[in-house]
């Protein structure tokens, strides 16, 4: 039973209509800590702007008591939930209340990383050196030699490690504004705890960042001691391992300010693209399935993209898919492009109408997948790949043309001309050129050089094909 305290509901109806009794055991520290939080919230006048995140454990029912917005999340995750709340509600006061198993074990990474980011919430960490709600098991903060239901012979550092000193660990981080360890074992200590608690909430009220307060708290039930012996255990045993005191207080400093990011509108960010109509169904247009292949760095994927962009600009349905499945192994780069007069079905091209091969490996790998009536275009300096009967195999000296035109890396652009000259894509020349230019939008110097390669290849094709 707690006397009606500030910041609490009049009666704890979520527990049981009309009741004024809490669910805590006699001598438990949670009730005292709750009272301190409630008073501080009320005195600071922040109840209307506070969201309280409860843990799982004995304090799972914080929402029975605190008269503010309440959220109850999973075990160990209150710091992650509080991160979500405070990021969603900048400027509000967010409190995360967690026990030692919750914060120190299962949820340690979430708590530690939230502290490291300097999240805007107050984390109240209740250390009673034991899992209480689940039946008195060892916590990360259990003392050496302390008996629990899972350390019946006492915690052995060789087997179970040492009590986890959370304040000391958080104090290694740069971001926290405030870190203090207090105790609620007696009146003098409670007065100090109250000050620390209030400071942590003031930091939230003022939007300054992360504040952490650890409370050493008695658990007579699971320690199997009476309240007096429990208080003595906190003072005599726990304080030796977990010394009280302030580790950090930067509350007088101004809040850190994030670097500015340029602001934009959806229209400005996403509004650039293709004007003009969407693809139209055209039953007269023969679907064309392309495979572009080579090794990484030859611009095989970009070649496919230029064809796809040109097809889209020409009102065709189109899909582009980078290499998938086993093709990802063995040093190939490839992409499948489907250009169609109707909605594209499978974006994967297993039997291409047109194969463009820029490497010997790729040519050998894919040439046999082209069915009769199809075309294989390969870089002329490579040996002619074996193709099925009825497949046209064409050597195109793309590397030489690109080199002679002054841009050896633009062999892929020369191959684009082979497709155009043989009308294998069925797309208007101006759309192809526009797509080629657009593909170098980020490197304008390359636009002219690729145009030059395109023209050289075009001239070659005119004379030789």
């Amino acid at each position, binding site marked *: 039973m707690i006397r009606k305290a500030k910041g609490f509901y009049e009666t704890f109806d*979520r527990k049981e209509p009309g009741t004024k009794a809490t669910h805590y055991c006699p001598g438990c520290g949670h009730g005292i800590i709750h009272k301190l939080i409630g008073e501080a919230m009320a005195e600071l006048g922040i109840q*209307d*702007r506070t*969201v309280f995140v*409860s843990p799982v454990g004995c304090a*799972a029912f914080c*929402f029975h008591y605190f*008269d*503010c*917005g*309440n*959220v*109850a*999340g*999973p075990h160990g*995750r209150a710091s*992650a*939930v*509080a*991160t*979500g*709340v405070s*990021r*969603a*509600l900048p400027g*509000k006061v*967010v409190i995360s209340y967690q026990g030692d198993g919750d914060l120190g074990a299962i949820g340690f990474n*979430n708590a530690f*990383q939230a502290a490291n980011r300097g999240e805007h919430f107050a984390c109240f960490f209740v250390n009673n050196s034991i899992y209480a709600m689940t039946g008195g098991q060892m916590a990360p903060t259990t003392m050496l030699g302390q008996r629990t239901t899972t350390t019946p012979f006492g915690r052995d550092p060789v087997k179970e490690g040492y009590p986890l000193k959370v304040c000391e660990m958080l104090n290694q981080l740069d971001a926290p504004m405030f870190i203090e360890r207090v105790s609620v074992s007696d009146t003098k200590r409670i007065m100090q705890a109250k000050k620390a608690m209030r400071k942590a909430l003031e930091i939230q009220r003022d939007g300054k960042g992360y504040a952490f307060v650890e409370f050493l708290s008695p658990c007579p039930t699971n320690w199997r001691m009476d309240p007096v012996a429990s208080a003595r255990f906190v003072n005599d045993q726990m304080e030796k391992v977990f010394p009280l005191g302030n580790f950090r207080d930067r509350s007088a400093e101004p809040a850190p300010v994030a670097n500015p990011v*340029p*602001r*934009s509108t*959806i229209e400005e*960010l*996403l*509004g*650039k*693209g*293709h004007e*003009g109509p*969407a693809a139209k169904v055209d039953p007269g247009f023969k679907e064309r399935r392309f495979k572009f292949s080579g090794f990484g760095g030859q611009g095989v994927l970009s070649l496919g*993209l230029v064809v*796809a*962009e040109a097809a*889209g600009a020409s009102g065709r349905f*189109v*899909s*582009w*898919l*980078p290499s*998938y*499945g*086993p093709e990802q192994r063995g040093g190939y780069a490839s992409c499948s492009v489907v250009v169609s007069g109707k909605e*594209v*079905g*499978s*974006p*994967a091209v*297993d*039997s291409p109408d047109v194969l463009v091969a820029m490497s010997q490996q790729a040519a050998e790998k894919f040439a046999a997948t082209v069915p009769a009536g199809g075309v294989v275009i390969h870089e002329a300096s490579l040996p002619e790949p074996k193709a099925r009967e009825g497949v046209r195999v064409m050597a195109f000296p793309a590397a030489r043309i690109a080199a002679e035109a002054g841009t050896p890396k633009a062999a892929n652009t020369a191959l684009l001309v082979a497709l155009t000259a043989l009308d294998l894509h069925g797309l208007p020349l101006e759309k192809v050129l526009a797509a080629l230019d657009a593909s170098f939008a980020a490197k304008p110097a390359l636009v002219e050089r690729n145009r030059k390669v395109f023209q050289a290849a075009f001239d070659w094709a005119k004379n030789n094909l």
Partner: protein
Amino acid sequence: MRKFVKGNEAVAIGAVYAGCDTYFGYPITPASDIAHAVAEYFPQLGREHLQAECETGTINMIFGAASAGKLAMTASSGPGISLMQEGLSYLAGAQLPAVIVNVQRVGPGLGNIGPEQGDYNQAVKGGGHGNFHNIVLAPASVQEMCDLTIKAFEMAFKYRNPVVVLADAVLGQMMEFLQLPKMESPRPETSSWAVHGDADTRGNLVSSIYLDNELQERHNWMLQEKYASMEADALSESYKTGDAEIVLTGYGTCSRIARSAVDELRSQNVKAGLFHPLTLFPFPAKALNKAAKAGKLLAVELSNGQYRDDVLLHLDRKIDCDVELINRMGGNMMTVEDVVLRAREMLEARA
């Protein structure tokens, strides 16, 4: 306005137009491009993007942001989604709206980063603990990666329920033209249940705890009624099923392969059709049973029959219909030709 974009970027664009406020993520292939795009767009629009420490962090940050009534989402793939399952159960229990995109990769375990659909049961049957369902949407194109992300937020808030957008590595990595949405979605009203950190919502509680057995059971019955009511929002596409003697069925990338197979079969004078669900929960059972009148269903999937099993589950037992399966796993995909041959075999078996 149209843009030529990857499926993953289309998800991010959908999130922008849906009015998504907060994105929490953790990198994983093949879903990471979604976070890349969001990390670029969101801060410029005054919205929140945070790379979390892990997927358990991610899903609980979403729990927090959703509790605040905000539009919250994440995207991940198999292993990351597995880590989020506890959180999905809590979201469902607390009736919180959230969007989780799963760009499925290959499993079990680390598997590989190719396309597979092995997370079907995890998404559709619940995945986490307890008697709950996610709403599950299954895009099959870059356009649908955007449109169904927007739809996911609509349904998440309509039903106050987590929604999984179940894509795969092909859909995430492929590029197609995306018609941009015309405008941003209207914002949902949340003050009756969310905690905004203001006087209006000071009395609200977001929680999934009911210590009293009767209350918990009542809560569970209410959830089941809610799930049943979702049937009205089941979506599917039936393509050339009217006169079909065999209907191919699959979702996502498989529906695309099946569609090509239907066209090929039709060109061979085989009356084939396609039944393609867009919602996997609620499952479009009525439309399935209409298509099943063909008498032969061939499930096309990149998993071990998980989707086929659901087809069998939803099939009206009074309909005389054979259901068979063609599937690949491991990151492999069946070819259109494989599906055509399998369908022909199925038809010839009758003769």
